[in-house]
C-alpha cells in the first residue's frame, strides 16, 4: 500500500480521539470562584470540569433567567454517528481509494465541522438569549435592548461579574489533525500518481 493510503488511514483513526477527549471547554471565572466553574463538551456529553460545576453554573445562571444546561441534546446522538460513519468511510478510502477520494473526504469533513461549529453557535446563542421573562435580574445593554449572556464561540469575554473563556480541547485537536492528515494524504497521493 502507498504511503498516502497509510496517512489517510491514520487521519481517519485520529478523529476517533473525539470519543476520548473533550471537544471544547467553556470556563467561567469570578473572584468568588478561585477554582473556576467549567464545562467540558464532549461529542456525546456535557461534563463537569470539577465536580458539580454544571449544577453550579445552572444555579448562577438562573438568576438572569437562563435555562438549565440540558442533560442531553439531539446532537449527542447525531455527532457520534457522523464521526463513526466518516471514520469507516475514511478507512475504506484509505485502503481502497486514491487521492481524489482523499480530497472528497477532506471537503466533506470541513463542511461537517463548519456545520458543527454553526450548530454550536446556534445553541450558545439560544442559551444566552432565550431568557425567562420572570428572570430575577434583568439587564439591558446601553442601547436599551435586553442583555444576552452568550458565551464566546472562541476566545474570552466579560459577562457581568464573570470572565468567560471558550477554547477547543484535545478532542478538537485530534479532529483537526485527522482532517489535516487527509489533506496531506491527498498531496502525497497526487505526487505518487505523477511519479508512476
Amino acid at each position, binding site marked *: 500500500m502507498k504511503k498516502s493510503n497509510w496517512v489517510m488511514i491514520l487521519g481517519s483513526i485520529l478523529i476517533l480521539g473525539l470519543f476520548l477527549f473533550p471537544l471544547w471547554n467553556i470556563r467561567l471565572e469570578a473572584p468568588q470562584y478561585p*477554582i473556576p466553574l467549567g464545562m467540558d463538551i464532549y461529542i456525546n456529553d456535557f461534563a463537569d470540569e470539577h*465536580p*458539580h460545576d454544571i*449544577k*453550579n453554573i445552572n*444555579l448562577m445562571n438562573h*438568576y438572569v433567567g437562563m435555562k438549565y444546561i440540558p442533560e442531553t441534546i439531539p446532537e449527542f446522538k447525531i455527532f457520534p454517528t457522523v464521526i463513526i460513519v466518516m471514520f469507516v468511510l475514511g478507512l475504506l478510502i484509505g485502503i481502497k481509494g486514491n487521492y481524489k477520494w482523499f480530497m472528497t473526504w477532506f471537503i466533506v469533513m470541513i463542511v461537517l465541522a463548519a456545520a458543527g461549529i454553526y450548530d454550536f453557535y446556534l445553541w450558545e446563542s439560544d442559551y444566552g438569549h432565550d431568557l425567562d421573562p420572570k428572570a*430575577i435580574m434583568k439587564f439591558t445593554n446601553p442601547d436599551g435592548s435586553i442583555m444576552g449572556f452568550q458565551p464566546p464561540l472562541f476566545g474570552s469575554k466579560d459577562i457581568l461579574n464573570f470572565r468567560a473563556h471558550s477554547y477547543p480541547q484535545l478532542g478538537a485537536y485530534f479532529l483537526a489533525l485527522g482532517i489535516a492528515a487527509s489533506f496531506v494524504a491527498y498531496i502525497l497521493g497526487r505526487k505518487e500518481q505523477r511519479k508512476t
Partner: protein
Amino acid sequence: MRKLSYFILSGLLLAGMISCNNGSKGDKKKGALGSNAAEKVYVAPGEYDEYYAFVSGGFSGQLSVYGLPSGRLFKVIPVFSQDAEKAWGYNEETKPMLNTSHGFIPWDDSHHPDISQTNGVVDGRWVFINGNNTPRIAKIDLTTFETTEIIEIPNSAGNHSSSFVTENTEYVVAGTRFSVPIPQRDISIKEYKGNFKGTLSFISVDPEDGGMDLKFQIMMPGFDYDLAHPGRGASHGWFFFSTYNTEEASTLMEVNSSQNDKDFIAAVNWKKAEEYIKQGKGKMMPAKYAHNVYDEKTHMATSTMKDQVLMLDASELPELVYLLPTPKSPHGCDVDPTGEYIVGNGKLSANLTVHSFTKMLAAIEAEKFEGDAYGIPILSFEDVLAGVVEQAGLGPLHTEFDGKGNGYTTFFISSEVVKWKVGTWEVIDRAPCYYSVGHLMIPGGNSREPFGDYVLAMNKITKDRYLPTGPEVTQSAQLYDIRGDKMELLLDFPTVGEPHYAAGIRADIVMKNSKKIFKLEENEHPYAITNEGETKVTRNGNEVHIYMSTIRSHFNPDNIEGVKVGDKVYFHVTNLEQDYDVPHGISMIGANTSELLIMPGQTETFVWEPKQVGVWPFYCTDFCSALHQEMQGYVRVSPASSSIELSWSLGED
C-alpha cells in the same frame, strides 16, 4: 512607659527572689520591640498560615482553630458545650453527642488537645480532647473539623491527666484527677484513705475509622492524677502520669496535699497490661458510661450506654506500675522527643526534676525498691534521676521540646518561659509572659519530631494587656519565635475561653484533607431528600415531618398549611447545594431552639411546637446569595380542632 516600669519592677523583684535571674530581661524587651516582629507574624491577605493551632477553650468547653504565626481565629469547634451558632447540641442530630450516664449535659471544661500520630509523628487525622468535669474524651475529625465521637470515662472524676495519644495512636489515654470510691457508694468522706481509688483509662483508636473503645482501666491508689505523657522511641509502651495528694487528704487540699516532700510520677507499662489481659488477668466490672458516635453519612449521632469495663488492679499485678519519687506536687509530666527523659514539673519547687528512662529500667531490673504504695513498688529518687534544672524559676508547670536538644518550661509564679538544654540541664534563655503562663505549645511538641519554630504560651491572666472590657477581660496567648538562640516575643492574641492547652501541626499536613462539601448522593439521613421533587410534608398523629430543601435562593416548600396548635413539627432541612462555602441556615419564629446551619449536602432537623394560631414566618439565617433576603417562607397554624389538611407548595400563586 508604664509597661516598661512594671516590667523593670517585676524583673527586680524576681532578681531578688531567684539567684539565677541576672536581670537581663529589660534588654530583651527592648530587643523584641526593636526587631521586625510584625513582619514575622504578618500573613498577607489571601496567604495561608504555616501552622494550625488547636487551642482548647477551657471552661468554654470548645476547641478553637487558629493560624500561626498570625494568631487569626478560623473556627470554634463545638465539642462539650452547646453552640447555638452551629446548632450543636440543639438540633436533633447532635443532641445525643452530649448524652452521659448522668443524662444530657450542655457543658464541660475542655483541657488538653492532642493530635493523632503515626510512627511517633503527628499525622493530622484527628484531635482528641478531654472533658474535665463529667469525664469524657472527644475526637474531632480533621477532614470536617467537627466532633465525631465522645466517650464517657467511668470510675473517673475530674478527667484531667488526659487526653494524650501513644505514638501510633494505639490508645488515647485518660487519668482521673479526683480519686473516688470505686465502685461509687455511700461512705463518709473521712474514710478516704484506702477506700478512694484512682483509675487510668486506655481507649483504643481504630486505625481505619478512628472508632474509640474503652479497652481497659488500671485501678490505682487514691492519689490525684494530674497530667500525663506517653513514652516514645525506646520508652514506647510506657505511659507516665504525675500525681499529687499522695497524702490522700480530702479537705483543705492546698495545705494537706502539699505536705509530702515528694509525690510520684507513675510509670505504667501498658504493653504489660495488654499481656495481662491476654492472660485473662483483667476483671470485668459493672460501669455505666455513654458512647456517642456521629455518622458522617447519616449526619446523625447515636448514643449507646455501656455497662461494663475491664479493670486491672495495679496493686495486684506486678510489673504493671512503678512509682518515681518526684519533688513537690509535680504538675506537668513531659517526655522529650527521644523518649529518654521524663520531666516532672514540681509546681511548688524552683527546680525541674528530670528522670531517665534507662536508669528507671536498670533500677527495676535490679529490683532496687524503696518501699511500696498499696503494693506498687517505689523506686529511689537518686536511682532514676537524670538531672535537675536548678533554680530555673518559680512554679514550673509544663515543658515542651523543640527537637533541637532544648526544653522550654513555663513558670507560673515567675511568669516566664525558660529555655534549657537537655543533658546539661543549664538554663540558656528566659522570656517573660504577660501574665502567669500555664501550658505552652510547640507544634508537634508531643511527638518524636517537633516543628521547633514557635512556642505558644497560654496565659492565665491578662490584666492590662488589652483594652478593658469590664471586670471580665480577655484571655490570651503569646507567640515566641524560637528559631534563634534567643526567644523572641512576636505576638499577643486574645483567645476564646481559657486557652488551657493546645496542639499544633504544619498546615499542609491537614489542609489537603479538608472536605469542601458533603456529597448529596452519599447522604443517608432518614429524612434526607436528594432533589426538590422529593419535598413533602407528612403527619403521624400530632407529629408533622417537613422534608424541606434549600438551594439558592429558596426553601422548598415555602408555604405550608394544615399545621395545628399542639403539633410537634420537625423541620428536616437538606441543603441541596454542592458548591464550596454555600451553607444555608433556617430559623422559625417562636421555636424554642437554635437556628440550623446546614452545610452543602447535609440534612439537619429542628423541632417547633407552635402554641399560637396564625401565620408564622421562617427565613434563611446565613447570607447565602444575592437573594438571601428573599429566602423565606410561611407556615399557617390553625386551631387544634381544625380540619384543614396538610398542603405545601413553592411558587404557586
